[in-house]
């Protein structure tokens, strides 16, 4: 974890008081009690979007669930199944009360039947359990895996079913846990919401851009001297957010994790806003930034990622179950320097067969990563097909 201070770094979330409840109240004030209307107005005006990956406007999600007749369920999602992400775990260890505040503010305003914070199996739940004492909410430590944090998989698991996604035809906002309207929000989103409820929309918007308001947590790994979690203004450039971790000979940055896309080193001055990242097919997602060093082969890296993702398929949907291993195998052959010029086209053909044909975001996320790899490292792919690797300057075969 870094302590370096660069201009873009902010300290809204990570300067918590740990599990000490009295210190938390001293720092942030008492838990605000907001009526649903007032909370919805503040969240709408804040422009807060989900920090778990999809980046959906939080107010729209809350409104969808709050409109129902049955009392809803509110779920905080700290499953964090992405291996390159640790921001939710860091947030919960440093500032558990702020996350729980967000959950409780929503649960009270929405008159929720239950409020549950879901954490993964490897998470040290002790500080959160201590912080949850005396609050009307539950902490559930659940089975993990890459897709276990997908909204429908989480609902399944909370209902006592296996931790696999379900068909999204009926949205969990209509029928989720126990058949009730269910609101699932990422842990960081809850902490951000707790700040909006206390300090208001205008304060929240004093960081970020009009379209990408506030701050975000970023987990930075790979070819950097000081990997860790930083919080930064959402209008920051990729270069400035990475700076405190001291990148070492960066060639490209994977933005958004294993379901994300690459920004080559020539694009480090891109701002981490939705609008600017679109040019790379990327989005901030859950704030995962992985730096590929100039001595590493991107195709070997990508083959490893897709092999992992193929193994993490919930094995329910045919196109994902069958297609991902084929994509992984062809990428591995490309990485190994197999002189088969049909490989890139075959990976693309298989990608087209997988895309849009599954119950969860896993196949589409994998396809996004693969498409970006073949696009950003096009020259590299050509070199591999000629039998050599420009990054390692070695024969690829």
């Amino acid at each position, binding site marked *: 974890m870094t302590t370096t201070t660069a201009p873009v770094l902010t300290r809204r979330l990570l300067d918590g008081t740990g599990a000490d409840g009295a210190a938390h109240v001293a720092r942030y004030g008492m838990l605000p009690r907001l009526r649903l209307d007032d909370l919805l107005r503040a969240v709408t005006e804040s422009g807060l979007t989900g920090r778990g990956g999809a980046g959906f406007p939080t107010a729209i999600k809350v409104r969808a669930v709050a409109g129902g007749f049955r009392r809803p369920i509110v779920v905080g999602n700290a499953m964090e199944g992405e291996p390159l992400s640790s921001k939710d775990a860091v947030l919960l260890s440093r500032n558990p009360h702020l996350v729980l505040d967000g959950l409780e503010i929503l649960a009270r305003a929405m008159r929720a039947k239950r409020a549950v914070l879901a954490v993964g199996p490897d998470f040290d739940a002790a500080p959160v359990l201590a912080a949850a004492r005396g609050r009307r909410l539950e902490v559930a430590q659940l089975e993990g895996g890459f897709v276990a944090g997908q909204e429908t998989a989480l609902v399944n698991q909370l209902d006592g079913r296996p931790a*696999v*996604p*379900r*068909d999204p*035809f009926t949205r969990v906002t209509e029928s989720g846990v126990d058949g009730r309207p269910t609101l699932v929000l990422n842990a960081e989103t809850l902490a951000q919401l707790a700040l909006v409820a206390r300090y208001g929309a205008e304060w929240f918007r004093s960081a970020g851009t009009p379209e990408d308001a506030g701050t975000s947590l970023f987990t930075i790994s790979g070819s950097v001297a000081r990997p860790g979690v930083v919080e930064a203004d959402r209008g920051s450039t990729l270069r400035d957010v990475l700076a405190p971790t001291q990148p070492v000979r960066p060639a490209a940055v994977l933005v958004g994790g294993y379901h994300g896309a690459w920004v080559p080193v020539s694009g480090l001055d891109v701002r981490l806003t939705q609008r600017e990242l679109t040019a790379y097919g990327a989005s901030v997602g859950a704030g995962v930034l992985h730096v590929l060093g100039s001595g590493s082969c991107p195709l070997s890296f990508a083959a490893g990622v897709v092999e992992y993702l193929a193994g993490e398929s919930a094995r*329910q*949907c*045919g*196109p*994902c179950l*069958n*297609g991902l291993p084929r994509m992984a195998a062809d990428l591995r052959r490309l990485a190994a320097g197999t002189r088969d010029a049909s490989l890139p086209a075959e990976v693309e053909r298989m990608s087209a*067969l997988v895309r*849009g*044909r*599954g*119950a969860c975001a896993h196949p589409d996320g994998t396809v996004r990563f693969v498409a970006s790899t073949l696009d950003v490292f096009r020259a590299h792919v050509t070199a591999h097909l000629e039998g050599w690797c420009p990054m390692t300057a070695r024969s690829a075969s």
Partner: protein
Amino acid sequence: MTARLHVDWTRCDGHGSCAELLPDVLAVDDFGFPVSRSGDRDPAVPRRSVDAARHAVRNCPLMALRLYDAAG
């Protein structure tokens, strides 16, 4: 209103009867799973094929298909 066909991929095991009954909407992929000819996630079913689509929904052994009305 347009009739659209939704596949529950968690149920579908590539039995293939839907693609046989709805050749203008569905083809079969490398693995035997139905693939939308239009490329849409939930392909539109032309009016002339709606009866065939209902038939396909009833005949799916895994009850993985659903026909619904959507705007546009």
